[in-house]
């Protein structure tokens, strides 16, 4: 007999996964850096130097000891710009996932719990929305609303909730048949409380996993939008628009696209690996009765 709560068991299993722990540690460090430089960036504190200070005398300098990752075509320090841009990627990732999760969970939960014609209608709408190619849709909406970090977040959020809704609905279809749901109903609980207080906690594990796996997708979409010039506007640095600025000098200044590219790659990879480890750690149903 296992004398631990389900959560304690999941934490125990996650700790045993070296790749997962390493990824999680990396993400914690990254989050700390992002928070620090978010403060610097918003309060205009030039730490370690001003990310937007141009100096044409030192433009396109390759990586050296003063400029660790080189400088761009206006003589700005790439490393400083990447540090100051880090919070944009993470904020976009988390907030966009939060928006899509909020919509997806509510829609999926109600649809799966109530079933019937409502469920049918909602799922057909989801199918229709999923048929839209995301990027052109996002581009259209951003073009209409105007490019800004919050518009990007909202647009990524409202175009990405369908997968979550499907997943949550599928979970609810199985869980609503459980005896404890009937017991809760027999106890006089309100539908709202049964959905969010009884069934949702049982579906928490797969939802958390999709959330973690959704963050890198949002980060990549933001990078893509910034690259196309529809994202966060200059001079505010983001990993995506550093690459955009650098693409004109791709043959002369490789450092302009390599390092921000690597930053996006490593961050996305860390989220995927951590998410995968989390999925394995919470997968109790198949592992033991």
């Amino acid at each position: 007999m296992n004398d631990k709560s389900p959560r304690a068991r999941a934490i125990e299993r996650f700790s045993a996964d070296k790749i997962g722990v390493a990824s999680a540690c990396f993400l914690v460090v990254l989050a700390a850096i992002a928070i620090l430089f978010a403060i610097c960036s918003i309060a205009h504190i030039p730490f370690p130097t001003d990310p937007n200070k141009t100096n044409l005398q030192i433009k396109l300098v390759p990586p050296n000891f003063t400029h660790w990752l080189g400088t761009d075509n206006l003589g700005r320090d790439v490393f400083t710009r990447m540090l100051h841009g880090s919070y944009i990627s993470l904020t976009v990732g988390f907030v966009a996932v939060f928006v899509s999760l909020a919509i997806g969970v509510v829609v999926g939960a109600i649809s799966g719990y109530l079933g019937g014609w409502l469920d049918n209608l909602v799922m057909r709408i989801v199918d229709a929305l999923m048929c839209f190619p995301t990027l052109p849709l996002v581009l259209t909406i951003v073009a209409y609303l105007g490019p800004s970090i919050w518009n990007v977040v909202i647009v990524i959020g409202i175009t990405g909730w369908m997968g979550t809704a499907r997943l949550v609905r599928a979970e609810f279809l199985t869980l609503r048949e459980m005896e404890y749901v009937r017991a809760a109903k027999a106890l006089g609980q309100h539908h709202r409380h049964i959905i969010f207080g009884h069934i949702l906690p049982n579906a928490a594990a797969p939802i958390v996993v999709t959330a973690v796996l959704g963050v890198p997708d949002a980060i990549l979409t933001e990078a893509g939008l910034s690259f196309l010039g529809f994202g966060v506007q200059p001079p505010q640095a983001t990993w995506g628009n550093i690459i955009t600025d650098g693409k004109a000098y791709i043959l002369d200044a490789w450092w302009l696209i390599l390092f921000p590219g690597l930053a996006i790659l490593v961050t996305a990879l860390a989220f995927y690996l951590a998410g995968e480890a989390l999925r394995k750690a919470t997968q109790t149903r198949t592992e033991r009765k």
Partner: protein
Amino acid sequence: MPDQPLLEVRDLSIRFVTENGNVDAVKNVSFDLQRGETLAIVGESGSGKSVTALSLTRLLPEPPAHYVGGEILWKGENIFAMRPRRLRQIRGGDIAYIFQEPSTSLNPVFTIRNQIAEAIKLHRRDVKDVDTEIVKWLNLVGIVEPEKRMRDYPHQLSGGMQQRAMIAMALSCQPDLLVADEPTTALDVTIQAQIMAQLRELKSKLSMAIILITHNFGIISDIADRVAVMYRGNIVEYGQTRDVLSNPQHPYTRALIDCIPRLGAKRRRLTTIDHARLQTL
């Protein structure tokens, strides 16, 4: 009004409408229940006894279930005319249920304490010290070390313990009627006997009415005041337990009673029910 029964069921008919045709699960069923009385509803699988029990607080999913006729009166108040809010007060607060599978009737992600506390907060707002109340009820249903056990998750308890916790949860709202839908079917025989003894004891302590749903005639004799035998959606026999057991009128009742294995009886095969013969009667 001392004469008004706690529960009156009049000509209740329930139909399930499915794509493969309609099924009349309950046909013109009538019975009543006084305060503190215990009624056993006995019948085989599919006889409509669970459907009847669930319909008392409209717990059946509608559709596919349709209440095609009859009425259910709780202290004179028509269940079918109630608003959802009033119905939720009755569920749990007045009529509490315990189900067959204790292992799945408890939510696996919450502790026993959490789940009982939720029930108490829902129906008894006046209770200040919820933990003391939980310990009191867990004690009453025979759980040892309730202070410690209530912090356990359902999977950490044995089947019998889980069922006791379920009973404690149902009782903690101080219902007037406890509906026990095959409370011992999923448990092994010795635990069955313990749970039944527990129910008997609680019944005398709390003067609460009980509806006991079972397919086992063997367990009802020392707890039920009256018994209703259901067969194919009808109540085929209804009367005092003693009378029904000693002098069954309907052939189905007789057949059911014959199915109880008796210790020491010399019999080569267990008796079964000959449905074909019953149809012709």
